[in-house]
């Protein structure tokens, strides 16, 4: 029963339950021990044909009696009458707390020592890394893929490139509070022609011997006017703003000229949801250590 009924309804519940039990008991007693009333009621047909009186089988009687007995015992020990929780004092809230304590003692107490370790020691702890990999599989793999390799423009977390910074504290920040990456659409400002020029410049930004013709120079000029705020003068990006590195070989949205043009013209966005309400600080700490360990320069 609900644990906070008003007084009237407590009496209502308890009263109805007890009255129906008593009524049942009386009914059973009257059926099995009818007394002498029956003789008068007996109807006789054809001189000797009578219905006769034969009570229901006795095992039936004992079944009902034991069921009644059981109900009374049950009501004493278990929650049944109004707000009465029974001698066992059972409530769902209490049952939850107890099993939570049980799990904490059996399992999380053992993990408490991980809390005091720094990320370097966590990375050397095989058990901790296994745990982190499980946490990742359960909570992160839907977007970032099973082995953190990324999929569908959800970033690969195993390369050395970190849009929001690869330091331990930065990764923890990213997981805890999420990130909102937003590349604005430049089509209206730059125009189609300039979008193509900037795209071509961006594609060749790391090429030292790029053909330095007029178009390249114009692209570079526009880049320096509009793009350097986030992507930096040398195209190395800026983790504080989520400006990605344009000089590596990692292209979330495609590195061919058409894809780059699309990214510049129409913009891109990427949202990392905050996990602070879903993961504990220890879980996030483990994840950050594990991710740093799996992050390797691309061959």
């Amino acid at each position, binding site marked *: 029963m609900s644990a906070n009924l008003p007084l009237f309804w407590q009496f209502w519940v308890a009263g109805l339950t007890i009255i129906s039990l008593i009524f049942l008991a009386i009914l059973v007693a009257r059926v099995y021990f009818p007394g002498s009333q029956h003789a008068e009621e007996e109807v006789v047909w054809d001189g000797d044909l009578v219905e006769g009186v034969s009570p229901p089988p006795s095992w039936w009687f004992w079944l009902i009696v034991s069921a009644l007995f059981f109900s009374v015992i049950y009501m004493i020990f278990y929650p049944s009458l109004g707000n009465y929780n029974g001698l066992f004092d059972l409530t769902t809230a209490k049952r939850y707390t107890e099993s939570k304590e049980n799990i904490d003692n059996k399992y999380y107490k053992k993990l408490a020592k991980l809390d005091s370790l720094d990320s370097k020691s966590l990375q050397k702890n095989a058990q901790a890394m296994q745990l982190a990999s499980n946490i990742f599989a359960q909570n992160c793999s839907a977007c970032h893929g099973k082995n953190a390799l990324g999929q569908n423009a*959800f970033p690969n977390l195993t390369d050395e490139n970190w849009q929001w910074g690869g330091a331990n504290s930065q990764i923890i920040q990213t997981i805890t509070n999420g990130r909102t990456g937003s590349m604005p659409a430049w089509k209206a400002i730059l125009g189609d022609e300039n979008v193509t020029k900037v795209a071509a410049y961006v594609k060749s930004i790391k090429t030292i011997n790029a053909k330095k013709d007029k178009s390249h120079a114009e692209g570079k000029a526009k880049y320096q006017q509009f793009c350097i705020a986030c992507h930096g003068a040398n195209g190395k990006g800026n983790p504080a703003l989520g400006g990605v590195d344009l000089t590596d070989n990692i292209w979330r949205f495609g590195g061919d000229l058409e894809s780059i043009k699309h990214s510049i013209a129409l913009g891109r966005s990427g949202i990392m949801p905050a996990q602070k309400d*879903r993961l504990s600080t220890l879980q996030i700490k483990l994840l950050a250590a594990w991710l740093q360990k799996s992050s390797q320069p691309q061959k």
Partner: protein
Amino acid sequence: MLKLHKTIESNSALLIFGILIVASIGGFVQILPNLFDESLRKGVENLKPYTALELTGRDIYIREGCVGCHSQQIRPLVAEVMRYGKKSVSGEFIYDRPFLWGSKRTGPDLARIGGKYSDKWHKLHLIKPQSVVPESIMPAYPWLAKTQINANSIQAKLQLLQKMGHPYSDLQIQNAKQNLTSKTEMQAIIAYLQVLGTY
């Protein structure tokens, strides 16, 4: 006793009445008192009624039968709370008519799915679940992205809910149809999913 027995048995109206009384005692004890428990009817803090777009998404959720495989109720069991978040309470469902608790979990519980994934993930996932979760057995719902919302009945729906006590302003109802123009069903259902469990 036997006389009473005979009276009841030989009068069918009385017999029907008696059966009804006996059969409803369980309901009188288990159901009736809860109808007068004010604490069950009070909304949780900061809970807002569904916007026109979210409400449309909810109707699509119902139409597509999502409730057949996804529950929206986190039971007070440790394993569930660890996986899905804090347990569900009745005050979270006061704007759900009817509630979509569901009774079967072929897929995961969705009571607190809001904010867990980005809108983009939901879109990819609904168009082809296996593109983001390869082992998923969820069917694809690609038509949601191609279908425009039918906004013809949204104002009537909101007006009805307003009459039933949902705090919609007249302005909200007036603008409802406009808010849905040129929106796809995909946008509506994502808006609905993203609001689940966030308050």
